[in-house]
């Protein structure tokens, strides 16, 4: 991955020289000279991409920021009431709402459970794939990639059925297992999705880990292929255990990859919307909201409050930026960006 801008090369070197004897192109030559003198060529080439990003990302973000200080909602769109600047009251309303803090807590706890589980499961499968013969590796990787390839809505509906209180496979199985194994709960008809945050997020944890470990496994496998084989041979000759081999060779060598995977997983698991929307039965169960659902509820549930939604989006963006800054910093330090 190389995003470096070739500053040290003669700037504008990529621009073709004017054809010899092209009369009347003096003006063009002047422009070329200007571009070369000020080393503008790289920036000119970046300009279309920047304009694109500005249009689809920065401009909407700026609008969201503006809305977050207004009472912007339906009456303002239909003209039933005027748009007003209301200072920071959207933000104070958010911070004063116990449900905001509850949803933030659920989001953080969920990520704290799911990120390690995903990384561990993904790494183990990656290591397994590296050891397996060609046929079995094909079987395991196909099974894993299918889980990854299923669209989130389909996967969630699948899990919804598995955990359905009326004849779902999970409740059916649990109700047939002996009590000493699964406790005294009446599992037949156990409602996993709406009776509480713990139950719902148990399902979501299984679902999200199942859907996201394949990416980790494939990435770890790709990393493993780059580790020189001699290192492992030497370790085995020295009689090192598999755990020791992992902790002394694999992990240190793949550390940059693990760091990137860790940060990406944190960002993804903070953003679980589709799955939680369906599993918790949005919008009825507010005690099961994560931050994404909370923002959607405040911003878009009738009557929509785009101002409040904007304020929340900004707050969420800042939270994710803190994580992303960690990502970029570590990437730079590891040399991934140079």
């Amino acid at each position: 991955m190389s995003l470096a801008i070739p500053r040290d090369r003669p700037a504008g070197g990529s621009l073709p020289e004017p054809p010899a004897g092209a009369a009347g192109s003096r003006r063009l030559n002047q422009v070329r000279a200007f571009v070369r003198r000020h080393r503008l060529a790289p920036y000119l080439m970046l300009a279309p991409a920047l304009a694109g990003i500005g249009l689809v990302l920065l401009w909407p973000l700026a609008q969201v920021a503006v809305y977050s200080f207004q009472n912007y909602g339906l009456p303002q769109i239909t003209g039933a009431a005027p748009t007003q600047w209301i200072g920071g009251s959207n933000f104070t309303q958010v911070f004063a709402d116990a449900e905001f803090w509850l949803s933030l807590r659920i989001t953080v706890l969920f990520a704290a459970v799911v990120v390690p589980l995903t990384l561990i499961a993904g790494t183990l499968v990656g290591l397994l794939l590296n050891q397996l013969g060609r046929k079995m590796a094909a079987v395991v990787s196909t099974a894993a990639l299918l889980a990854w390839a299923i669209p989130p809505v389909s996967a969630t509906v699948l899990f919804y059925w598995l955990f359905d209180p009326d004849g779902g496979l999970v409740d059916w199985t649990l109700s047939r297992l002996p009590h000493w194994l699964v406790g005294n709960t009446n599992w037949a008809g156990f409602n996993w999705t709406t009776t509480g945050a713990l139950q719902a997020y148990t399902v979501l944890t299984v679902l999200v880990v199942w859907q996201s470990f394949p990416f980790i496994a494939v990435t770890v496998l790709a990393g493993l292929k780059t580790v020189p084989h001699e290192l492992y041979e030497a370790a085995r000759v020295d009689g090192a255990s598999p755990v020791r081999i992992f902790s002394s060779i694999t992990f240190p060598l793949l550390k940059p990859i693990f760091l990137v995977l860790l940060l990406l997983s944190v960002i993804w698991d903070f953003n679980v919307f589709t799955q939680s929307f369906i599993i918790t039965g949005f919008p009825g169960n507010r005690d099961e909201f994560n931050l994404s659902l909370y923002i959607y509820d405040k911003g878009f549930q009738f009557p929509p409050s785009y101002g409040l939604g904007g304020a929340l989006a900004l707050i969420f963006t800042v939270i994710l930026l803190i994580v992303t800054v960690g990502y970029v910093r570590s990437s730079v330090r590891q040399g991934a960006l140079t």
Partner: protein
Amino acid sequence: MNLSRAAVAIGAAVAVAGAAAGCGSSSSSSNASAAPAKLVVWRMGASVPSQVTWMNGVVAQFHKQFPQFKTTKVVVDWIPWGNRVTDWTNALTSGKGGPDITELGNTDTPGIASQGALAGISSQVKAWSSGSSIIPGNLANDTVGGTTFAVPWFGGVRGVWYRKDQFAKAGITAPPTTWAQLVADAKLLMKKYPGTFGLGAPSDYTNAIVSFIWGAGGQVAVQQGGQWKAELNSPASEAGIKFYADLFLTQHVSPSKYIGQTELGAPGATSGGSDEDFAKGTLDMYVDGPWAKASLTAVSTKYASQWASFPIPSQNGPNPAPAFAGGSDLGVWAKSPNQAAAWDLVTVMDSPANATTFANAQGFFPEFTTALSGGGYSSSPLLSGFAKAAGFTQISPLNSKNWATADATDAIIPTMMKALMQGAPFAATVNKANTELQNVLNTGHE
């Protein structure tokens, strides 16, 4: 124009005169010189053949009564109940794709109207010959700040569904009229029918929970000097809330799986909840309206001939608990360019004759005092209970301007009931909900 409408409505005898007057009204209504190519009507729910037939009849009448619109096509778009607010919002924010007429849940109307979505139709309703026979309280529900924004179309109340065969086998001779009897009967049924639950109590079911609050003499909120005062924590209201929560907590007549569910299952779902269990026979009694019959028969018709209803009992009887007066309204879309034609179509859809046919076919009640007192409901075992319940109704504060925020966005009562069923401390949970409710009703946010 007013005169012509009255003439059309009353005197079919002078059809020619009516037609002429109709033409006159068309030319007088300013810019609507040409008949609109089409009128879009948003109906809620799923398309049902009987309703399509009914609407075809209405359109034929509309073309006959208003010849100036006889080339106007009427298009009905079916909006699932769960999508209605999203679709309204999208039409409002984009300014495009909105209807000319929309059906609204009657608790939607004040909130939607105050967002600027509906055209004010006060003068039209006043001039409408049938306007004066609409149940006055229901028309008041559609009036915000002195302006009428919609007309009631049909009404419905919830009651308790039960099975006659189960009652007979359990030796229950008359439907319960007090809470004590209700719980006793539920337990009796569970004993006679092992593996079933007696009475479903979903936590996300505001429109039924309020009946228990009212049935103990409590109020959700009352208006005092232009301000809302929430009363969830009054002793009477608390008795109703506690009774409902205890159906699961201490009486064990409702299963734990209904926690976090609506009467139709997971929020947003249309089946899989207490309705489905009642139809399958694993739940002995459940609270819903007569309109549920279509979806119940879709699950199973095995016990359909035994289905019957009684009103939700009050704490100590003998009168039933006030039922939430639900129903649908018809409103003219504010952004519609064809408001005059749209209103004319509304008057045909909502003529006492058409509204009564419609309501009867769907298990609803018409919104006209004349049609309700006509009777015919008491002879049906399924409808008699609901008809009795329809005599004891209440709607406030479910028709207040900020109720949508309190119930749909903030889900204050469902969240409170769920927490209670999860075992949260009673007084603190109810007090918290009460404070939130009072804030939302008065200011629009917690």
